[in-house]
């Protein structure tokens, strides 16, 4: 494993989670689970981070925020959807303001299930994310890094909210 895999820095963003998954993400950094032994640092800064952990579903308010965090991260980067809500919208899926899982806005590389997600699952997901990070680093080095394929989330992106499809809302929304 190269040094990319030995030093995955994380930024955590809470979409509209019920806070259950956030607490589990924090639990993974406590002495009991101690993710720092894998070199994981919770940076709190997208410009430093390699891995974006998203908890909770995406709604109309936080679409531009998720987009901006993703865009501020430098390649190679990986997105991990933590918990049922971030994977698909979870129990909030049919709420009037919920657009769906994190993948309606940003390409998700690892889907980590659970309601709430367990710290062990988060660690497994990060280890899986490290593998993908490695592949992306090699691709970046060989200049073959491609835009991720978002077709598998197409059904979620076609959902209509307030007369607009989710894909339209996601691409039109900006901060300010």
């Amino acid at each position, binding site marked *: 494993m*190269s*040094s*990319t895999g*030995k*030093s995955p*820095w994380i930024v955590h963003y809470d979409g509209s989670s019920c806070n259950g998954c956030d607490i589990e993400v924090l639990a993974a950094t406590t*002495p009991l689970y*101690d993710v*720092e*032994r*894998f*070199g994981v*640092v*919770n*940076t*709190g*800064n997208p*410009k*430093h981070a*390699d891995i974006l952990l998203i908890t909770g579903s995406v709604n109309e308010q936080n679409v531009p925020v998720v987009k901006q965090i993703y865009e501020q991260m*430098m*390649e*190679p980067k990986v997105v991990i959807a933590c918990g049922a809500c971030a994977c698909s919208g979870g129990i909030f899926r049919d709420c009037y303001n919920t657009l769906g899982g994190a993948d309606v806005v940003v390409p998700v590389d690892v889907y980590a299930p659970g309601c709430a997600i367990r710290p062990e699952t988060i660690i497994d997901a990060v280890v899986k994310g490290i593998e993908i990070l490695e592949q992306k*680093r090699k691709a*970046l*080095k060989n200049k073959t890094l491609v835009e991720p394929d978002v077709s598998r989330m197409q059904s979620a992106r076609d959902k209509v909210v307030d007369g607009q499809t989710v894909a339209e809302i996601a691409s039109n929304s900006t901060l300010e």
Partner: protein
Amino acid sequence: MEAGVASWVSWVCVIAYLVLGPFVGMLISGIDRKVTARMQGRVGPPILQPWYDVKKLFSKDKSAVNNVIDLYVATALGMAVVAGALFFAGGNLLIVIFLMSLSSVFVVVSAYSARSPYSDAGAQRENLTVMAYEPIMLLLPVAMYLITGSFNVDSTIVQDLPLIVGAPLFFLAYLFVMPAKLRKSPFDLSTSHHAHQELVKGLTTDMSGHTLAIMEIMDWYEVVLIYGIVGMFLVTSAWWSWILAIVVMVVCFLLEALVDNTFARVKWKVTLATSWVVTLVFCALNMAFLYFL
């Protein structure tokens, strides 16, 4: 003959610092993270973790918020390296201190150049931190001159008594502000090594990839110089004084780790007030003592 040997030895020291300095600094920060983890009852990262981090940062995609930030950060690194080289060559301590200040000025300027609110806040706080530690840094050469009659670092090596015997309070004041210089708790208000602070990465918010890697390498060089100054208080003409110096450096290192782990970040007013009061009171007492003896 003396001058010949001295210049030969100082060249060896300079080259050793330039080549081994970052390596030693990297080990120091790796051991620091390990010790911190053990103090918190964790396993902690491998000791070479800072090396992996920097290597990874260099492999990230290249991007910078503007055209000049890299230049500023690289200049800051250059200044820090020259300061350290001059110190280990036994050169003029005043110039070493000035170069160190210049290096921190360039770091502040690079953060200002990003023009983002978080970088700005970090830069302003770094200014305050510099103001907190600068008095004692400037008073160190004064103490040295009062005792050895010279500003040159190598004048301590020919003494029979270590600097700390004449300037114990200067040493304590330096130890007190060392967390500010290392950007550690309780004086880590400009940027921090841990998330979940009110301002996490102030100074370095807008540095990514190789820019951040250069900052890290500068930290490695600086940490060696900062502990080198601790050692300067201990070395004399006797060979065993070097061993004593290393022991004291290790003790100071452990003390720093303990302080970093037990204290929360303090506000800027507390940072300034405590470091100035400690510096002025300790140094005034020590200077009075030196004058009247």
